[in-house]
């Protein structure tokens, strides 16, 4: 079998979504961001919304998300993505508007914007990458850093006496009246990737049907920040994060299959 046979359309089993361009990603090898980017690109294409989507990127590792997906983007100030997305959606109700944010952006500096956009029931979807650490600035403590987890600003491990407790903002979101769909997923296995895709798709659909706001948390790895190999990072995540950040739908009032 030659290479041409392999890439013949009838033999094609996988292709990169059209909306994803060929720009080399700045993400570290093993990082979860690339996988989630791809899912979002696939979903926008499948929904036929390529020309009607505006993404809002955060401050953090995903600050350059706009380089990789060929849709219109606004890059928000640190933590303000839900406010930016609120305005875009209110001004353009027929557009698909989502924000893409990390734990520091969404659950720390932007807590107010996150809670209030969700509680207003804005017709937006928020994609939340939780890797329990500040990746972009070099591995500092995040609001979601686990008790005992070592980071550069809690080098002896997170101590609740000093640093307080991990913030489980997704659980909070599920209790807000404005949310219609709140889910927590991961992208560490093929099966989990399929589930994460379904969840993001539901969040996007719900926003276009005007059912309320949605939050999809992706429990993610940061092998550079955690100082582990990509494989070990996945193991560490399963062992340590999944029991604190339990996967599954926390709330679903959408009736979307």
């Amino acid at each position, binding site marked *: 079998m030659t290479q041409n046979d392999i890439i013949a359309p009838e033999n094609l089993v996988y292709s990169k979504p059209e909306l994803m361009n060929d720009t080399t990603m700045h993400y570290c090898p093993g990082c979860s961001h690339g996988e989630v980017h791809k899912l979002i690109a696939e979903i926008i294409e499948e929904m036929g919304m*390529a*020309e*009607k*989507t*505006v993404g*809002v990127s955060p401050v953090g590792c995903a*600050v350059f998300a*706009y380089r990789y*997906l*060929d*849709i*219109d*983007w*606004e*890059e*928000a*100030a640190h933590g*303000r993505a839900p*406010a*930016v*997305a*609120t*305005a*875009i959606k*209110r*001004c*353009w109700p027929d*557009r698909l508007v989502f924000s893409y944010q990390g734990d520091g952006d969404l659950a720390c500096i932007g807590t*107010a*914007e996150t809670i*209030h956009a969700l509680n207003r029931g804005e017709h937006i979807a928020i994609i939340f990458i939780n890797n329990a650490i500040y990746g972009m600035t070099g591995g500092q403590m995040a609001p979601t850093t686990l008790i005992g987890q070592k980071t550069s600003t809690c080098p002896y491990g997170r101590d609740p006496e000093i640093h307080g407790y991990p913030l489980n903002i997704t659980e909070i979101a599920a209790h807000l009246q404005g949310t219609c769909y709140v889910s927590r997923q991961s992208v560490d296995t093929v099966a989990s990737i399929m589930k994460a895709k379904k969840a993001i798709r539901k969040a996007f659909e719900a926003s276009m049907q005007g059912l309320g706001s949605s939050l999809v948390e992706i429990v993610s790895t940061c092998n550079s920040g955690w100082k582990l190999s990509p494989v070990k990072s996945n193991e560490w995540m399963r062992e340590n994060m999944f029991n604190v950040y339990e996967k599954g739908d926390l709330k679903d009032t959408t009736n979307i299959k």
Partner: protein
Amino acid sequence: MESQEVKLMKGNEAIAHAAIRCGADAFFGYPITPQSEIIETLAALKPWETTGMVVLQAESEVASINMVYGGAGSGKRVLTTSSSPGIALMQEGISYMAGAELPGVFVNVQRGGPGLGTIQPSQGDYFQATRGGGNGDYQVIVLAPASVQEMADFVDLAFTLAFRYRNPAMILSDGVIGQMMEKVVLPPMKPRRTEEEISKECPWAAMGRPKSRKPNIITSLELSSEVMEKRNILLQEKYAEIEAKEVRCEMHQCEDADYVIVAFGSAARIAEKSVELLREEGIKVGLFRPITLWPFPSKEIVELSKGKKGILVAEINAGQMVQDVRLAVNGTLPVEHFGRLGGIVPDPSEIMEALKSKLVNK
């Protein structure tokens, strides 16, 4: 004709009516004294049922300005209004808007500071407005209304300038102008722009990408120093163009004057009376009123100062615009300052006495 009807209303109310009439697409704001009538008036007028304008009470001034960023980045005419402490909270967003070159409008109905300060009027935010309270090298177009009529007229003007230059524009008012009632002729109704008109006027806007063009990215971020310097140089060139083309000011009885009072906003209204009182005493005084605080009318002041004996800058602050006047005239004639602080609004006679003691009888 309905649009020519003379109404009696507060400056704050005039802002709300003017925003709807000039085809604004959205208002995002957070209540703060002395400007809460703006959002209250908008909520009562329900423009979402008539023009389709969005009105939303945000969770904070921080959120408000970032909503303006979001809406402006998608090509819409969006404004927010606040007062001094709230405007302080917005500085990050304003800097981001300047960096991303977004055409939003914000109104500051100033009150006394620093800190939580007082709810009484002040002009203490002149530096914040004209120097840029946020980070980086940037400028905001600043219009200073001196009447309820100008509150109404400057909303559309601010949007026009903001979109002409893709730059944030501020209306720097204060508690006097916001709260006082005057006669006003509201601007005529102008329809909101259609999607087609927005695409044409704002080909850079992030509003969904048709296959025919590349993605539009709204950002102020650039990690390459070489590229970032070029972006900054382009910004500076834009600011130079604004300085060359958009200076606005007004002169009153300056031709035969020996002395000139320079004042903006409510202080200029008060100083008009001081000019009258001084002339009754035989002292020839004129009034120069900058309408744009940035770009500042430096050339006009230099021209005006020729042959004059002195300038008194009357402000409701500790001496802020006086620095720009001194920079402009560069030591060629005495420039003195008079101001009241803490929310005290001066009486015309106080400005008159200051001019006499600091310049005439010196």
